[in-house]
């Protein structure tokens, strides 16, 4: 298989947090009624996860599902599996009112790792990032500075940020600036 061309070639930055553009993330958008039993069952068959509740994430090993809106979920798997899984899902959902598309190449994914992760995100998004308000298992679709983004936490010090590939360079510059060593506010670690 040909090499996957990342938007920024796997750029990374080390500051308040370690920022890395992730390779190999497959993403499949599913539109449809997320409470429809037929849709829930097919997603379970193909991706091995139950569809998440409102603003939640569900993971099962390398696959996962993120709640995007009452009728949209972002299904995660490895990049190499994404097209096959999307095709499989679309075939099995042929009789349901649903749409499936592989958006892996339309998005960029960044991982933020470090104890200051909450602060870096809080600088950019209008979201309450206090540990009581935002926890692993939640996903938030919002904006980061001027572009649409979604992020979720994998553990207490790791988050993943998804944005459109076309704004990947902007997002990386943004995250790097917010993670500049000289810019610590120490709001959450005080």
């Amino acid at each position, binding site marked *: 298989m040909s090499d996957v061309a990342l938007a920024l070639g796997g750029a990374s930055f080390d500051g308040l947090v370690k920022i890395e553009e992730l390779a190999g993330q497959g993403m499949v958008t599913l539109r449809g009624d997320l409470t429809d039993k037929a849709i829930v069952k097919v997603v379970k068959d193909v991706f091995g996860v139950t569809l998440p509740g*409102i603003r939640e994430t569900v993971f099962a090993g390398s696959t996962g599902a993120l709640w995007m809106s*009452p009728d*949209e979920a972002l299904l995660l798997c490895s990049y190499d599996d994404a097209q096959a899984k999307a095709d499989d899902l679309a075939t099995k959902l042929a009789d349901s009112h649903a749409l499936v598309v592989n958006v892996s190449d339309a998005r960029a994914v960044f991982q933020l790792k470090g104890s200051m992760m909450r602060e870096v995100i809080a600088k950019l998004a*209008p979201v309450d990032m206090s540990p009581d308000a935002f926890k692993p298992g939640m996903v938030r*679709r*919002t*904006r980061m500075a001027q572009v649409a983004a979604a992020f979720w936490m994998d553990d207490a010090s790791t988050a993943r940020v998804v944005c459109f590939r076309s704004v990947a360079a902007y997002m990386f510059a943004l995250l790097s600036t917010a993670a500049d060593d000289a810019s610590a506010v120490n709001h959450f670690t005080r």
Partner: protein
Amino acid sequence: MLVITCPYCGVAAEETELHGGGEAHLKRFGPDSSDDDFTGYLFHRENPKGVHFERWRHVNGCGKWFHAARCTNTLEVFGTYKAQTTEPPKDILDTIRAKRPGFKWRDIA
């Protein structure tokens, strides 16, 4: 700052995450309507100082359109409700009546 809770995703979203969509509950007049009705539909908008019903879209979020009842004077939000309705729900009207006795908005009071 205006903070409106999206009725679809439950996020208390601040203004920059939203986009205003103008007055709510407009009745559309199209072909075969009278000139007066069409003019009213197209141009005549409420511009109250006080209780107002508006459409908003959670544009940097779940992307859904919804309705909000708020006070344009104090930015107090009385409540939000889903888009699939042609008039404000009773519980929101009750809240407004309690907080702004005697309010009037078009033919709602």
